[in-house]
């Protein structure tokens, strides 16, 4: 019953967050320089054509009217149609023109659904790599405070956090893909294309996991119940894996929820550099082309994913430690 109440409360909060996000994004997009109609009709189109198309598309209505129209569509699951991408292909800036001959524009939902699995795959792999890197280092550092393993964890997290992701991406491509020919890197033609970008993203989020694990495990190991466990004669392995880690996991699970936002930010740059066909790449091209509906759709989708993951994180934290308030 408690969980049901929690779910209802958090979903309502989540909907409010998505609503506020959509309002902010919607307003911001319309106040930044760059008229999408000019891009749609082409630079050489006369001003009366620009105005005619803008009026037809409702882009000269007050922002609140445009937003109301958008939300009405959104409630029916309609994120609108791209301004620049026809169903038959793709587009960015460059003198193109919407006229009666133009084929139908792509649905934003289709564009997002087409790209989302790629980004989820990349994000999932990045998280997996980050955990694989962080767990041994973080646990060793937490268990051996003031020893070299703790220093190693500290050094590693400092190094990782200082490396710019775009630089690491280029170095890894040069070394692993071009010099050693171990991994393909650019574009996407199969699962192997996920590994390098996922590694770069993993390096971006691993320091925070290492830090949290080291600190939280270090604190738990000083707690009285650990001493009691030793007195009860439990083996060190049992103490660490069954008791200490479980208690140290709560802040880690919360951190993972927050790290998702880092991941989303990182995906924009990394997908662009790796020419990876995910949501990040779509976002960059859409921003450059002022494709408002696509940018809004992506923002709403990512905020919804963010809210959803944070609900899951809170639930998992509660299941791990029922003392956690939800």
């Amino acid at each position: 019953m408690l969980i049901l109440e929690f779910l209802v409360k958090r979903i309502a909060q989540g909907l409010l967050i998505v609503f506020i996000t959509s309002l902010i994004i919607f307003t911001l997009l319309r106040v930044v320089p760059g008229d999408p109609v000019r891009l749609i009709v082409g630079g050489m189109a006369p001003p009366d054509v620009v105005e005619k198309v803008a009026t037809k598309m409702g882009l000269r209505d007050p922002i609140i009217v445009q937003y109301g129209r958008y939300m009405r569509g959104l409630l029916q699951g309609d994120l609108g149609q791209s301004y620049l991408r026809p169903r038959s292909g793709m587009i960015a800036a460059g003198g193109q023109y919407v006229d009666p001959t133009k084929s139908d524009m792509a649905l934003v939902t289709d564009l997002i659904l087409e790209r989302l699995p790629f980004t989820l795959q990349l994000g999932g792999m990045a998280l997996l790599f980050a955990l694989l890197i962080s767990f041994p280092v973080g646990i060793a550092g937490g268990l051996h405070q003031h020893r070299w393993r703790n220093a190693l964890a500290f050094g590693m997290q400092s190094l990782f956090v200082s490396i710019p992701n775009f630089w690491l991406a280029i170095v890894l491509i040069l070394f692993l893909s071009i010099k050693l020919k171990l991994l393909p890197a650019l574009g996407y033609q199969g699962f192997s294309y996920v590994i390098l970008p996922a590694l770069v993203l993993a390096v971006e989020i691993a320091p925070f996991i290492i830090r949290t694990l080291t600190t939280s495990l270090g604190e738990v190991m000083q707690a009285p119940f650990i001493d009691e466990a030793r007195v009860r004669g439990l083996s060190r392995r049992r103490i660490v894996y069954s008791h200490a880690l479980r208690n140290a996991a709560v802040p880690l699970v919360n951190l993972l929820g927050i790290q998702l936002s880092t991941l989303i930010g990182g995906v924009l740059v990394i997908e662009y550099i790796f020419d990876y066909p995910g949501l990040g790449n779509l976002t960059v091209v859409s921003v450059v082309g002022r494709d408002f509906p696509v940018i809004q759709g992506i923002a709403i989708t990512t905020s919804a994913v963010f809210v959803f993951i944070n609900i899951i994180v809170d639930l998992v934290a509660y299941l791990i430690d029922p003392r956690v308030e939800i």
Partner: protein
Amino acid sequence: MINRRDVMLGGLAGAAAFGFGRVNPDFLVNSAFAAEGKALRFLGAEALSGNWDPTTHTNLGQLIVEGFVFGYLTRAPMKPDKPDELIFELAESMTPIDASTMEVKLRKGVKFHDGTPFTAADVKATYEYGCQPDRPAQWYPGLVTIDVVDDFTCRINTKAHAYPAALYYYLSSFLPIMSAKDIANKAQLSARMNGTGPYKYVEQKGDTTVLTANADFFLGAPKIPGVEYHFVGDTTTRTLSLLNGSADIIERLEQEQVETISKDARFNIHKAVSVENKYLFFRCSKKPFDDPRIRLAACHSIDRKQVLEVLGVSGTYSKAHISPVKFGYTEVADYPEFDPAKAQKLLAEAGFPKGQGLPELTYYTSVGFYPKTKEYAELITGMLQEQGFKVNLQTLEVAAWGNLLYDKPGGGEGNMIDCGWCTGSPEPDLVLRTHFHSSSKRITGIVDKDIDAVLDKERNATSIEERKKILQTETLPTIAKKAPALALFTSVFIHAYSKKLDGLYIYPNGMQDMTKATLA
């Protein structure tokens, strides 16, 4: 002591070790590097418009793809030593009958990719559709009528529209021939490409345009089985893709990337003087650049040699408002060169000694498409400020810059904006008339009867030779004297490609001929 948990963990570890030996790790390593006999992968710097009707855009990336798919009456290799040369393709000859009529004999036995035979009706439909004033590309000099004599002969007729038919001589290399059937069905025309060229359009897969070799191509089937044009906006990514073998040819490289690729024996670098001049356009319809003396003063303040130093390999010196590979190019004697004393004299004559009293000038440039624009715009700003111009430089990303580029009623945004203009034909009016004639004045907004007169005079010349003479002795010098823009330099287009690719010809606007190319 071994407990149940140890047994379970041991079992899982054993199963994992056993399973690992059975997994083919090929999916992790080396799964997608270049394979023999594959389609050629070209990484372009510009995204395509997705509307395949060639009359709807001025997108250079799409012009390149169209070059593979469509046929043209002629092709213009525009080599610096022979800029006027035309090679007949769908036309077998083009003969002037009189000043407003040109007869075109067409090649027989050519078919469109959908199987429809190519005839004079297709030329008529293409030209009469493309010349309409509502077509956004606006490559045509005006309305035109095509008189069909028979299936393989037609006449370009401009009598009713008061300009010479000879203008279509060079233009013919830049106007892709569409099928009359497609033009009658606009939805079909915009949904896919259907030409007579060496490659057929297959599909658009995300950011990749997939083409396959046309086995029935009238000059023989291309040896490379397919071409994939893939948009990659980032220059570094394009370079890395070439280096790791996931691309065969890339374009729009900068100095640093050229140096990296040059050191690698696996690749060729192709540098060619392009058909593109980069201009600093002045907004001539508003103050202070409505006064040609202020425009000239600005031109004399800019040391173009320093601009070229910043640009490195991506530009070359030229001395006219058209590229050296355009018909009629000559080094204009009075082209405004760096001369601070002259700049000061002109400013004083215009009533602004040392720039005093001039309003602040906004100068727009872009980053992300043309090489080094921000760097040389900062240099130009410094040079102008040295002569007393107060300049506010605004660096914008391509979309915002494109938004401000063109003239509008009351004058375009700001006072100066830089831009290149690249058209795949030696025809000079694609640049000169487009930008400097009062009937078009795309960016500058200039209305000047002297410029109009010399542009009309060269356009109405009765012979190619006469036109060339007028261009070189009257039109280009007048434009240089009035300076509605300063042509800063001519772009050098740089492509890098694998040495496995042989027999490729790259046109000065970036289009490519792969009909004889092989990819080992």
